[in-house]
């Protein structure tokens, strides 16, 4: 009893945080590691004798599922890249060229669609692009497409859905960085004789890079694991990681190879992105002129970027 009292009075910060920790571990970390563990187990294994095997991984690399993961990687990269090119001018406009009150309104209307249900957004595109939908009818009457052209169920419709759903996640981080940027940099750059393009290339863009990275991640991660958009706008022909997981877990109920698929899907993009990052870093180090390597000159905005 005394021990219990001691715990309640003295260790209460721990007690206070305990439920949250438990919740997090039971519902997130425990199943993650369990899935990783199960993906190495043989089908015939019992709890008395554990047979470890790599067969689930090798089958994934041999069959179409690896292709599926690569396809989702390409799709997610394409979505993020497209979003970046579309979003940057919008973020620049919001941060630099709008009065403050109008900007609040614009930001609000940007957040509104991204926080309404994803399903509704997808359905809206479905409704528009469908065979008898408004867009295909209109384009058909304008003789821009033939009546047999399908706007839905192809790569294009998936990409359109993805970009429109995830665009705000790219715009907002870039906007946040550009908005915080000291506008005196622009004047200074102009004073030093740089043109508009030069200023953008040397000052604005390097400063906004952290926002670009954040936006890239915020778009890439959900786009990689997306299930609803390919399944509703892409038809049965296009299969991606999310759909494959749903197939494995909910339809085939094949938990072991499903968990192998899940863990490859988590580790593959991480590995590829890390490799790309390292390659860029090496290229940068190699291409840097020697006189810059010796003296720490030549990067005026370095501490801004850090």
């Amino acid at each position, binding site marked *: 009893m005394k021990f219990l009292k001691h715990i309640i009075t003295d260790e209460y910060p721990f007690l206070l945080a305990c439920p949250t920790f438990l919740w997090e571990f039971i519902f997130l970390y425990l199943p993650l590691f369990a899935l990783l563990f199960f993906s190495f187990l043989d089908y015939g294994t019992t709890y008395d004798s554990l047979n470890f095997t790599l067969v689930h991984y090798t089958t994934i690399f041999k069959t179409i599922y690896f292709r599926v993961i690569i396809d989702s990687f390409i799709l997610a990269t394409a979505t993020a890249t497209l979003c970046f090119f579309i979003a940057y001018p919008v973020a620049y406009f919001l941060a630099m060229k709008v009065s403050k009150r109008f900007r609040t309104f614009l930001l609000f209307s940007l957040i509104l669609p991204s926080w309404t249900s994803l399903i509704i957004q997808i359905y809206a595109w479905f409704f528009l692009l469908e065979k008898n939908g408004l867009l295909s009818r209109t384009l058909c009457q304008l003789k821009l497409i033939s009546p047999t052209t399908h706007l839905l169920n192809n790569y294009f419709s998936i990409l359109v859905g993805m970009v429109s759903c995830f665009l705000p996640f790219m715009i907002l981080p870039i906007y946040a960085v550009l908005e915080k940027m000291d506008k005196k940099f622009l004047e200074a750059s102009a004073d030093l004789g740089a043109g508009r393009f030069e200023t953008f290339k040397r000052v604005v863009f390097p400063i906004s890079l952290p926002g670009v990275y954040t936006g890239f991640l915020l778009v890439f991660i959900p786009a990689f694991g997306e299930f609803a958009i390919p399944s509703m706008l892409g038809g049965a022909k296009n299969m991606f990681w999310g759909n494959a*997981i749903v197939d494995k877990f909910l339809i085939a109920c094949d938990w072991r190879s499903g968990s192998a698929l899940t863990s490859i899907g988590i580790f593959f993009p991480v590995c590829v992105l890390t490799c790309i990052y390292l390659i860029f870093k090496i290229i940068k180090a190699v291409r840097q002129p020697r006189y810059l390597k010796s003296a720490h000159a030549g990067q005026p905005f370095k501490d801004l970027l850090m």
Partner: protein
Amino acid sequence: MVDNKRFFLRFIHPVYVSLIYLFLYLPIIILVLFSFNESTVSIKWVGFSLRWYRELIKTPEIIAALQTSLIVAFVSTFLSVLLGTCFVVASKWWKNTWPFHLFYANILLPEIVLSIGILSVFTFFQIPVGYGSLIAGHTLLGLGYVIPIVRARFVELDPILTESSLDLGASYITTFRKIIIPLLKPSLLAAGLLTFTLSMDDFLISFFCSGPNVQTLSVYVYSMIRTGVDPTINALSCCFLAISSLLVLLICSFKVVDQVLTYE
């Protein structure tokens, strides 16, 4: 020539931005418009009517799905705000910040992985999926947002306030109730609203964890769309949109946007 070019730039930029906004809003606007359409064939505009909204109220499945969604959203909001706040308050006694990094996983992992995890826990312990798994998943999702938002406010609090309260003889619980909670109130409200919105809109976790008997609104909409276009879905989406925009408006008025932005 230079003036010409500058005019062109000045002109083209707003046009481009408005085109992007149009791209984001066009499908939604058309959806809303056609939900008021009299005709059964979705494409032809016949006349204004509220027929599909009447049909909506008459369908018992939709009412049941709405009820499920609301129950799950309320409970998971309450739980995630409660758990998150306790965690943040307890963090005052720790020296290091690594426990906070644990919760980045809730946001950074693809949602599909979260939902598989919860499904596997419930299957492993042979608990039937339903309200329990839905609430577990949505609370997990909410924690990832609640903890950073509440923490941002909690760090700014003056420690003198709590210390003087303790000095004056208040117990820990009284201090928590009378000092800490009122000071954290704006961020608690904002975080709660955000979690509520997330939970209402969430599809993937609901899809995995809802099971055969319980259906949330978004899963219901999804299963309806699989069977084809139906004007009732338009009406339902329209209601959904109205609720969501109301929530977003509320969130914006609590300035949670700034907090989320600075956090991200």
